[in-house]
């Protein structure tokens, strides 16, 4: 449906068009979204735990986690509130390297990412491994600020950005695909921006 009188839209330059998923617009800034106040997590109090169901598999403190091999990922990110930002540079520990350090293969097909503020979000395990995702520690070469999820946030750039849980403190492998915080509140279980899977009613 064409909107009467709407011509002037801020069209992206045509060479970038193919990088912007349907319904998204290009953003230069870096908006902040979250469900509650920003938790201030001190690195002294920080830890990261891998769990299978309720059972802890391995736990790292801040120093131990930072000593894991670190990788860089520069990716376009897509927020469900319709902005897309190009070329965001992150550094952190690939999920593959976390699993290697724990000496395990992914035990189940589904994962819940858990956060210090009680937030959680579900991601199929296969979307976290083989170089697809990391626990990011640096953004633009600097520690991630608290409002952007620091000290550490999950980065799953090929899904809508709410899946990249802020203030992440663990991954929990689950037998079934269990909805997380936003997924229980009407957001899509998978969240592929290229298929516009924003809300639970989207195919």
């Amino acid at each position: 449906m064409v909107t009467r009188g709407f011509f002037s839209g801020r069209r992206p330059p045509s060479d970038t068009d193919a990088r912007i998923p349907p319904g998204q617009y290009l953003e230069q800034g870096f908006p902040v979204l979250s469900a509650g106040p920003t938790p201030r997590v001190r690195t002294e109090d920080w830890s990261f735990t891998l769990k299978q169901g309720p059972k802890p598999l391995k736990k790292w403190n801040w120093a131990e986690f930072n000593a894991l091999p670190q990788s860089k990922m520069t990716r376009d990110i897509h927020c469900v509130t319709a902005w897309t930002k190009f070329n965001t540079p992150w550094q952190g520990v690939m999920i593959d390297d976390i699993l290697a350090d724990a000496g395990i293969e992914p035990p189940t097909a589904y994962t819940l990412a858990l956060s210090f503020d009680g937030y959680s979000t579900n991601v199929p395990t296969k979307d976290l491994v083989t170089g697809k995702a990391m626990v990011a520690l640096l953004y633009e070469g600097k520690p991630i600020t608290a409002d952007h999820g620091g000290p550490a946030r999950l980065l799953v750039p090929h899904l809508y950005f709410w899946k990249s849980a802020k203030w992440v403190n663990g991954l929990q492998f689950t037998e079934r695909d269990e909805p997380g915080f936003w997924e229980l509140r009407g957001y899509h279980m998978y969240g592929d921006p290229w298929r516009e899977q924003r809300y639970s009613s989207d195919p």
Partner: protein
Amino acid sequence: MSSEPSPQSPWQAATIARIEKRTPRVTSFWFKPSRPFTHLAGQHVDIRLTAPDGYQARRSYSIASAPQAGAAVELAIERLDDGEVSPFFHDVAAVGDEIELRGPLGGHFIWEDSDGGPILLVGGGSGVVPLMAMVRHRTQRNAAVPVALVFSARVWDEVIFRDELIGLDDRRDGFDLVLTLTREPARRPADYSRRVDAHMMAQAIERLPKAPRLAYVCGSNAFVSAAAQALIDADVPAGIIRTERYGV
């Protein structure tokens, strides 16, 4: 992407039924959806504009009307001069136009009278919109739930829904309005003339018969960060604070 309506499409056409200027920068638009829906206080809709060449712009807008308000849904849209969508509404949109809309959306920043209280609402600028839906919901349900609304605006003439809010405050039925103007002196005895801070939050909480059960904070990202921190500094537990950030 196809713009043909499909039976499964969550998008629907809504007709603009009424337009009313609220403040120099905020105008309310009442939309009549072709498939009416009931929403919860605090939810939003997504709006999508389509240019003749298929280019689309989409934004979220909170619903200002109470769930019981009837077939038309009120959105209050602030004009950002260099924005893409909000100037379209202020300069181009007219009564009778059809706009594509999807919703209601959002399952976290909501309040129903059955959720109980007391509740503390903190809004900055157009961030008052979903809080207005909560206040109107309370009024329409004749709910006795104690509510304090701290509303920060730059100047008196930018206090959206001002007459309605002051009218509700004057009833003294458990709804308390606290205005704070950041660029003008206060006009009413108990109001403030500064940015929100922990002391203001503590005083707002004292107006409630007991500690709030839930606190809702909405506005620009900078406002929400400052106000949520002020609540925490006023000893409000982080777990009861719900936030909605308008982005930039």
